[in-house]
């Protein structure tokens, strides 16, 4: 049977029409592609491993419950290997080849510093939990949202604890010579002074310095009532704690989360030296004075246990922020779909997203979503199931 030109055109038109009509039906069943950039190997992978446990659990739960309007979430993971270069390569692949709708991560600031500008150029919506202040900027990175605190909030919480809760007015601030240490001390010292505290000692010391006794003695003779170390170096922090212990000096040590890490603990000369050491943490995932977690976190722990997710070698807030992020995205996609501009518009009006890790809110002018009041200090020596006791002096939430 011969086919005339008119018949061929008719068939082609019909086929084209059928394809056009069928498209939305197929798209509705397509998975939602979410790019994920954790460091699950390499030197900074402990954070990524913890967060990934929560992220994967949330995606499993969402998909098991039918997905988002019938569409499954497909997590496309690229391990950054704790390397900013590989993070950039992963981000480029996710946006150009995999064509993801949104990217969660990277999870370490060093990698995010490299990736955030790239994702801004490719106009990809990004959510990350990294603390470096410059990693959000509504003008430069209008599609980038942070569902964690900034370094300013971290330092602010420590300062508030020392000055307002412990009522200490003479403070020693010591940092290592890294960019993080120097920048933190330079940012937090003026904040302390504004709060009426007197910084009686400020030192910037090489983290490899094996003997910190001269520095601690200098703090002591200056009349310091609290020590605030800013460093992520467990060796440096443990030397401060050990020297304080050797001198039988019982001033509180208040500062960054590494003070409460297993690495720091392993370097202590005596376990009791960890007393009166208060690192940063977060109220929604901390044990209160009654020894109980807030209901949301308690229910989350039960869910983790029933899914046989290990908490002994990680921190609850890492798993929590990993768990919250896919749910936050799923809610947004359910409300406005996967269009980037619409998603950004949704997040710009997000108010009190009730996560395990915290209540997240954004505005068009503020893409740092974590509330100040939920950043708190905890007792370093109270770790249980990845969570700590609130430091003494905090009232009920």
């Amino acid at each position, binding site marked *: 049977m011969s086919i005339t030109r008119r018949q061929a055109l008719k068939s082609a038109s019909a086929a084209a029409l059928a394809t056009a009509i069928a498209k939305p039906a197929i798209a509705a069943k397509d998975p939602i592609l979410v790019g994920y950039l954790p460091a699950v190997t390499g030197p900074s992978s402990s954070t990524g491993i913890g967060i990934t446990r929560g992220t994967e659990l949330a995606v499993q739960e969402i998909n098991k419950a039918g997905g988002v309007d019938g569409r499954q979430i497909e997590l496309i993971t690229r391990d950054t290997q704790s390397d900013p270069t590989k993070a950039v390569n992963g981000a480029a692949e996710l946006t150009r080849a995999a064509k993801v709708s949104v990217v969660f991560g990277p999870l370490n600031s060093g990698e995010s510093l490299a990736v955030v500008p790239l994702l801004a150029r490719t106009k990809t919506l990004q959510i990350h939990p990294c603390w470096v202040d410059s990693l959000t900027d509504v003008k430069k990175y209008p599609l980038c949202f942070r569902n964690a605190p900034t370094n300013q909030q971290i330092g602010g919480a420590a300062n508030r604890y020392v000055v307002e809760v412990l009522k200490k007015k003479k403070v020693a601030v010591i940092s290592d010579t890294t960019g993080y240490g120097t920048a933190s001390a330079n940012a937090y010292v003026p904040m302390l002074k504004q709060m009426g505290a007197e910084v009686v000692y400020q030192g*910037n010391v090489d983290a490899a*310095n*094996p*003997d910190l006794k001269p*520095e601690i003695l200098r703090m002591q003779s200056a009349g310091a009532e609290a020590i605030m170390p800013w460093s992520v170096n*467990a060796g440096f922090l443990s030397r401060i704690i050990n020297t304080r212990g050797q001198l039988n000096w019982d001033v509180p040590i208040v500062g960054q989360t590494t003070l409460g890490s297993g*690495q720091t603990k*392993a*370097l202590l000369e005596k376990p009791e030296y960890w007393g009166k050491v208060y690192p940063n943490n977060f109220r929604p995932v901390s044990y209160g004075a009654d020894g109980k977690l807030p209901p949301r976190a308690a229910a989350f722990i039960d869910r983790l246990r029933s899914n046989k997710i290990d908490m002994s070698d990680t921190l609850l807030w890492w798993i929590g922020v990993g768990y919250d992020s896919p749910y936050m995205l799923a809610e947004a996609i359910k409300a406005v779909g996967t269009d980037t501009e619409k998603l950004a518009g949704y997040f710009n009006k997000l108010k009190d997203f009730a996560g395990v890790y915290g209540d997240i809110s954004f505005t068009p002018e503020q893409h740092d979503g974590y509330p100040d009041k939920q950043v708190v200090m905890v007792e370093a020596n109270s770790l249980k199931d990845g969570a700590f006791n609130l430091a003494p002096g905090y009232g009920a939430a």
Partner: protein
Amino acid sequence: MVESIVLSGVAIGCLYALIAIAYNVMFSASRVFSFTAGTLGMVGGVLGSIFVLRMGLPVWVGFLGALAGGALLGIVTEIVAVRPVLKSLDQHLYVLSTLALALIVQQFTAIEFGTDAQPFPRIFDIARGGFDQQYWLPMLACVVTIVGLELLYRHTLVGHAFRAIAEDNYAARALGLPERGLRLASFALAGAIGALAGFAGGQLLLAFFANAPMLTFYGFVPVALGGMGNNRGAIVAGLILGLFQQTANFLVGGIFASVAVFAAFIVVLLAFPDGLAGASAQRRV
């Protein structure tokens, strides 16, 4: 305060002196400044921690294992980073090759062992006190090394051979000495001395990959001040450096202590270009 300065200063000074001796032993055998010296110290500490704390081996086995690891790294340094550039010593390519090897080892340690400082075992199960083992172990290691090297160099045939190639390797070769084998043995010896520094100072410095550049820099100062290849000068300069650094830590503190150390280093070198104990080398022609 004085007690603290002396204890810490002498202990750290002994570690610097041991690293300086490792530099010198390698230099004497090859005329090459191998910037892996500090890395050898770091490896001694890290291997000690791995063998004793992670693997649960007895301390003496961990100690011997760390020394063997250091010696092996010394041999690898000679084969990989020194031997290929010996023919063009005047171009100073060894600076690049030894630094590159040091960086490779340092980064490998960071990736495999971790970027955090990790605990180092107590060597002797005795209570902590003022004159603790973390202070006297580096001093003991330094004394043992000095005495051991003196005995080796002055009273053994191998020691005489080492001194011969250090004095004039062309003449030594002409006399039939196995220059390559002796050089390899010197690097192994330097590796063991560097690892000894890291093991003896492990409680003070912890097992930490970033100790490598710190020891490389501070270990080089006694070499420059004491005179290149001069072990006695290195020991005296190492002790002075440790005491000066600790005094600066107490008097000015923080990063200013490091500034004070290097300012003093530059001033001394301006006044004594051949080092405090050095003299211009004279050679009969």
